[in-house]
């Protein structure tokens, strides 16, 4: 996968309030893990191993430690002449200047950044999970299925299913329903917070979503559209 084809956006702006005092002065992705790492190292390392060398890290809450940690990206081989890692806090422009209202809004505010690199696909990631994953395989899958959006799912123990965003699918793979933290989950396939979008399509939706005052501006809630499954559109689950 050529890096120009793909760009990653890591949503690292959340507070991670359930970590109590650990995130009092640092954002969750900057919290130490595993003896010498920080949580965001896993996502960043996944990116470079997957051949994605253009990465935007969207920060907002307590970004100082995270910004300093990421720097120019040298530890992850991301200090490059073409591509590289960019820390993207909310900014002031001639027309506007506002905080990120939600995850989708954060991407929306950085449309220009993404357009600069003009990728075909954008991989949206959260910066707060521990896992090793080759995103290029997911992008290949996305291409094969001619999808506009692909979401990564993982089986979780049934007793924990109500903590996650759950996808319910038919035996043939069609997704029938999406429910956010359902009290009585119908399936145990949880959303991992890893998404691949065809950029042109995502851009269109971000722009129209922004105009919708009723929108929650949040990725999980919107782009796994509750609305959407009605037409039973083509959805594939690869096991």
């Amino acid at each position, binding site marked *: 996968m050529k890096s120009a084809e793909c760009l990653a956006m890591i949503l690292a702006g959340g507070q991670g309030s359930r*970590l109590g005092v650990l995130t009092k002065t640092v954002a969750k992705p900057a919290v130490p893990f595993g003896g*010498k790492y920080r949580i965001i190292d896993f996502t960043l390392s996944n990116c470079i191993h997957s051949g994605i060398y253009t990465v935007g890290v969207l920060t907002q809450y307590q970004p100082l430690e995270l910004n300093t940690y990421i720097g120019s990206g040298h530890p992850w081989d991301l200090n490059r002449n073409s591509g590289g890692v960019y820390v993207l806090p909310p900014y002031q422009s001639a027309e506007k200047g506002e905080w990120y209202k939600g995850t989708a809004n954060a991407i929306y505010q950085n449309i220009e950044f993404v357009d600069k690199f003009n990728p075909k696909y954008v991989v949206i990631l959260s910066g707060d999970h*521990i896992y090793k994953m080759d995103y290029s395989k997911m992008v290949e899958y996305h291409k094969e299925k001619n999808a506009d959006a692909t979401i990564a799912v993982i089986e979780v123990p049934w007793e924990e299913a109500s903590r996650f965003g759950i996808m319910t699918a038919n035996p043939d793979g069609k997704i029938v329903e999406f429910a956010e933290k359902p009290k009585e989950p119908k399936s145990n396939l949880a959303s991992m917070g890893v998404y691949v979008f065809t950029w042109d399509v995502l851009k269109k939706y971000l722009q129209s979503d922004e105009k919708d005052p009723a929108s929650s501006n949040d990725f999980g809630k919107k782009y796994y559209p509750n609305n959407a499954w009605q037409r039973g559109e083509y959805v594939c689950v690869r096991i």
Partner: protein
Amino acid sequence: MLGNGENMCAYAFDGYWKDVGTVQSLWEANMDILQEPPAFELNDSDWKIYSRNPVKPPHYIAKGAKINNCCVTEGCNVYGDIKHSILFEGVTVEKGAVVEDSIVFPGAVIKENAVIKKAVIGEEAVIGKGAIIGDENTDSSQYASPYCTGGISLIGGGIIIADGEKIGINSMVASETGKGEN
């Protein structure tokens, strides 16, 4: 999006994936590394995890120190006993101190004869001489916290726990405790 006929796919992932959004899940995920064999293998030559490396010398284990089933990294100085725990860079465990089932973040100092059980110790925290963290016999109500579940205690970054202080389980200390030298 789907409603308009867009093509949406789900890609099933099979492998270790942990959301470390709570103190308990953070602690558990760290402990996963200590299992033999590890539930999550950091030492994967095909998939190295890169990070900003601290500039510190190799860690030093003193005479009389005991280590059992732990992970230790550069800059640490271990004079006490550590068991089933993870020490991040530059951590000091002084003589007579005991650290069990715990995670100690960078730069923290566990002073002489302190006892840490099932805890997460924040960056640059100092646990005073003879202090006990995660003491089952201590009344936890003073620092009880909804953030700390599963018997785990959490000491925030930079916090100094006074000599001899006792902190119970499921407790979170987010600001300085009483008097005492550090």
